[in-house]
């Protein structure tokens, strides 16, 4: 179960390397759990677009005699995957206290976010040809996925905008969120095109910082500083058809298999889910994941999100911290951190009254890699 959560300052935080953010996040998570660094006997690391993190973090933290150490990379699904590996490690007895950390520092004072994520154009080979064709970075690839959904199911930009507006409304109540001024659907529609059909307000932030979680045994977590958060179910899905002929492209993602598998492991159903924290690199990713997890029938995500059920006044507590769109962009640690806060009941003004079962998604690549976690404040039936 999850016993600790450490979050550095997140956003336009300059002057620290990713490795420094990562070490800070682990120290914060250890303190949050009420344990000592020397209690940590497992460490899983994950880096973002700027790299800079390795298993050398062990030395930075002065951790000796670790029983589990690895660097993991499954893009945006990594945070969930780290918790899964850590959970299996503590269940097997391989380790007792595993720290899982992600940090990134892509923002530089003089550099635009677009330059950071769009500057990897390769000059040669297959990837060079893709860049030469104008398909550079994630924005066009996700835009192509979204357009396919829009044409197939008549999903509209306005419907996607409802997700952006609802998440901003949540971010108002999150002191850690980078963007906290409310927006309207008209603001969404008026924001500039990034790659059509995506407006600027369909796209996530870019953030510097680090987040770590501590995974330990149920016995141990019950006697520590924070309300324990049970990890009841988990699954991954990696369909493996990126850029190949793929009838599912933009229509169905790995969430469609990982979500039900994780819920089954947890002994829960979609109807049992109290809080949903979904990876939201784009508004479209949220819509597709809601469909794939079964919160609405396939193809009806557009009307579903536009029905008024989202946001702090809605029925469906979804991305309650503002997510990556309005909160902070720490890859899979964004939904995971908010899920832990909600499961503990520590959400303050944005806390969901019901928070026993929290569903968390991680999404990596261009809808290529998916991880699901089912967290719970009670051990429950599983």
């Amino acid at each position: 179960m999850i016993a600790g959560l450490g979050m550095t300052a997140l956003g336009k935080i300059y002057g620290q390397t990713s490795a420094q953010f990562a070490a800070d996040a682990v120290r914060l998570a250890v303190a949050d759990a009420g344990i000592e660094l020397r209690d940590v006997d497992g460490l899983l690391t994950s880096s973002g677009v700027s790299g800079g993190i390795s298993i050398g973090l062990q030395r930075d933290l002065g951790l000796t005699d670790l029983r589990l150490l690895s660097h993991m990379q499954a893009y945006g699904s990594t945070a969930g995957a780290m918790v899964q590996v850590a959970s299996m490690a503590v269940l097997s007895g391989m380790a007792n206290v595993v720290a899982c950390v992600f940090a990134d520092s892509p923002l530089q004072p003089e550099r635009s976010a677009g330059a950071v994520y769009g500057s990897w154009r390769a000059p040669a080979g297959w990837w060079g040809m893709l860049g030469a064709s104008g398909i550079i970075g994630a924005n066009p690839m996700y835009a192509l996925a979204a357009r396919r959904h829009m044409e197939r199911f008549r999903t509209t930009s306005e419907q996607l905008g409802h997700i952006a507006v609802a998440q901003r409304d949540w971010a108002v109540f999150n002191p850690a969120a980078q963007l906290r001024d409310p927006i309207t659907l008209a603001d969404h529609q008026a924001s500039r095109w990034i790659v059509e059909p995506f407006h600027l307000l369909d796209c996530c932030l870019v953030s510097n910082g680090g987040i770590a979680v501590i995974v330990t045994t149920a016995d141990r977590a019950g006697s520590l500083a924070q309300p324990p958060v049970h990890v009841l179910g988990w699954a991954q899905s990696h369909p493996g058809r990126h850029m190949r002929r793929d009838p599912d492209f933009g229509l169905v993602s790995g969430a469609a298999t990982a979500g039900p598998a994780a819920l089954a492991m947890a002994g829960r159903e979609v109807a049992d889910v109290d809080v949903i924290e979904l990876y939201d690199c784009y508004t479209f990713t949220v819509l597709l994941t809601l469909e794939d997890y079964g919160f609405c029938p396939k193809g009806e995500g557009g009307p579903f999100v536009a029905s008024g059920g989202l946001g702090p006044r809605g029925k469906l507590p979804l991305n309650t911290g503002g997510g990556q769109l309005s909160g902070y962009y720490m890859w899979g640690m964004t939904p995971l951190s908010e899920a832990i806060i909600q499961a503990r009941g520590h959400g303050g003004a944005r806390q969901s009254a019901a928070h026993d079962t929290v569903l968390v998604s991680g999404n990596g690549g261009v809808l290529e890699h998916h991880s699901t976690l089912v967290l719970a404040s009670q051990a429950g039936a599983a």
Partner: protein
Amino acid sequence: MSVGPVQRDDATAEFFDGTAAGRFLLRRCPAGHISEPTVTQCTTCPATDLEWVQAGGGATLVSWAITWSRPTDGDEPRRTILAIGELDEGPWWWTQLSGDVDPEAEALAAGRRMRIAFERADAEHEAVPVFVLD
């Protein structure tokens, strides 16, 4: 935006020999399965002894998106349609639509027929496949 510069490497040398001659090359395994040119193992069976075969050049639009580029000379941003096409042989290919296509005027939508053409940034760089609307 027209296509940008790209150089060949060991993996793409034969493919770019093809584009230089106006041919889009695909991979075919001994069982006759067709795969996209990027693979080193057949996408249908595990075969690795693949031969190059020329595509017919026809394709159907799968999805599209619109991007803008601002020319360095300060002119107005130029629109480019990015597209995924399903080649008639089966594989998908991701590239841009040639020219200044107005998606509204064309009523652009999945299912639109296209054909492969080739453009290059300059004489020093390789020819890149693009789609042209039929």
